[in-house]
């Protein structure tokens, strides 16, 4: 398999560099924290890809600084400067800084924020929903409920930062296992509503599996979700689902053998659908290079 598609993906991400970070789309001029962090994750995961690795290393140094400039004093990294409550990119920034000794202080402040103020809202149990809404993980937005994807990303970030033993991480692992659907898989975080089982989603499932692999959870606790993901994977064609499915399966040593070919096909859809968001491109870059899952590729 040629790496031409991967090189193009990396070149596309590099071309979206704007003053202060990475934009979400070509022609956009405003940097976004999540796009900047995801680009850094792709650059890290693809650090050995030739040619261009030295240029990309230099870009990574600059982007980590850009990301630092987006950080608030309390450690949070909001989506954009004026949206302090949309702090969900903090875990991504933490991951993006993890491999840089020069950004240890920024990372540690982000860790402090995640383990401190960034707690999802605990809500009294409701007879109408299936999950234990008293469990606390992480939310997308300040002072709202905990959901699967922000919780998963925070767990991966904290594992890489060496904070896995913290009580918050143990609670969050319980939350993820509680939100796992009876037949396998996860969605955004609702298992049962008014007695009806909700449907799983490949992207949420891949993210949760990635987090639980980083937590060294037992394989038996996730077997049904791995089976769900492996079964649905062949029919997927969208960047978010394909990227997270590959990462989720790879984290448990079940990386699909056609991963690179699949990603190449997904990237080709941009000719019809238009350019993918930078976060989606970067996710596919990480999935391409992360043979053993996201956590291993970022160490």
């Amino acid at each position: 398999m040629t790496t031409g598609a991967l090189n193009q993906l990396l070149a596309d991400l590099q071309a979206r560099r704007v003053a202060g970070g990475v934009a979400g789309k070509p022609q956009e001029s405003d940097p976004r924290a999540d796009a900047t962090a995801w680009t850094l994750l792709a650059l890290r995961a693809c650090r050995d890809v030739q040619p261009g690795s030295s240029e990309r290393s230099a870009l990574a140094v600059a982007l980590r600084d850009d990301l630092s400039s987006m950080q608030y004093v309390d450690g949070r990294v909001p989506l954009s400067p004026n949206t302090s409550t949309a702090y969900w990119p903090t875990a991504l920034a933490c991951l993006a800084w993890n491999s840089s000794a020069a950004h240890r202080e920024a990372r540690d402040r982000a860790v402090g924020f995640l383990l401190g103020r960034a707690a999802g809202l605990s809500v009294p149990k409701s007879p109408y929903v299936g999950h234990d809404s008293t469990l606390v993980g992480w939310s997308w937005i300040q002072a709202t409920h905990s959901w699967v994807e922000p919780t998963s990303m925070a767990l991966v970030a904290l594992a890489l930062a060496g904070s896995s033993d913290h009580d918050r991480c143990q609670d969050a692992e319980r939350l993820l296992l509680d939100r796992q659907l009876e037949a396998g898989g996860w969605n955004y975080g609702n298992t049962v509503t008014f007695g009806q089982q909700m449907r799983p989603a490949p992207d949420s499932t891949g993210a949760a599996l990635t987090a639980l692999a980083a937590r060294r959870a037992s394989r038996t606790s996730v077997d049904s979700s791995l089976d769900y993901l492996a079964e649905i994977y062949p029919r997927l064609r969208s960047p978010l689902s394909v990227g997270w499915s590959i990462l989720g399966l790879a984290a448990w040593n079940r990386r699909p053998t056609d991963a690179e070919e699949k990603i190449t096909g997904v990237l080709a859809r941009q000719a019809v659908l238009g350019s993918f968001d930078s976060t989606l491109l970067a996710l596919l870059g990480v999935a391409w290079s992360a043979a053993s899952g996201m956590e291993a590729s970022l160490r």
Partner: protein
Amino acid sequence: MPAQLAAHPEAPLPKRFSRRQLLGGGLGLAALASAGCQSMATSTFIGRATSYDADLTDLLRRGLSEIGIGKSAVSGKRVLLKPNLVETSLGEAHINTHPLMVRAAAEVFLSLGASAVSVGEGPGHRRDSILVLDESGMSEVLEEDSIPFVDLNFQRGLSLVNTGGRTGLRDLVFPAALADFDWIVSMPKLKTHHWAGVTLAMKNLFGVMPSFYYGWPKNLLHQHGIEASILDINATLKPQLAIVDGIVGMEGDGPIAGTPRNVGAVILGTNFVAVDATGTRLMGYDPVKIDYLADANGWLGPIAAEEIEQRGETVESLAQRFELVPGIPMFDYMRS
């Protein structure tokens, strides 16, 4: 009866969001603010179509004409079609707005002189909008007809003063991309909704709110109350037109887990309150029992049948009694 919403996992709490501001860019606020002009004209058209194989373009063209929309109104307009795409639904066509309805709408607007037609959605339950397009059959239509898709979840925000005042949020953040359009056309599915009672043209606009700023599934809005959010979004955005896909609707535990119900109706109108009141009646229920409609009555539009100028088919000729799952407080209230 908003008290029941206390049971929602993200129950209302009094909290303010960000200040009025453009979030991360320099687009003119006036463009969006002036684009909207929620009509108080109450003409509501009901068309009959027994299946999606019917001539939907002809039906929509007739419907638009009946409510006073022709070439002069549409010519040169940039139109955003906002279908209801809430879930992946391979083989379950009753969950989402049917792709052929979207295709027909695009064709009609272009034939009436629209300068551009796009489709936009920001699914609440799904981050992967492209997967929802793929599995709902919408991708195929958009690709065949070269209709651009705008993922409204992944958009830079544009903050507008909340003119509804029901949630307590001072500002609402909309996708900046909305300012690229002159008309926003809400294209919901005719469905029951276990929290709001029904989901029609007004609730469908939850999907324009970017999850970037509200979370998945639009956490901040749920937390401030579904009905209150419906009213604030509609009062602030002032959308132009509603086209309800009621050819096959959803009864039972909507908006996702219900079952298909053949109704054979398409509703058009420029006043969303009148449209939603008509849709509720087609499902066999009294709009007075739908809290957001009761609140909107006389403010954003009328719900009394005698105040809605009905065109096309009569409500009585197509109305059915949708099944409602027992044990769901909102449905118990609607039946009472």
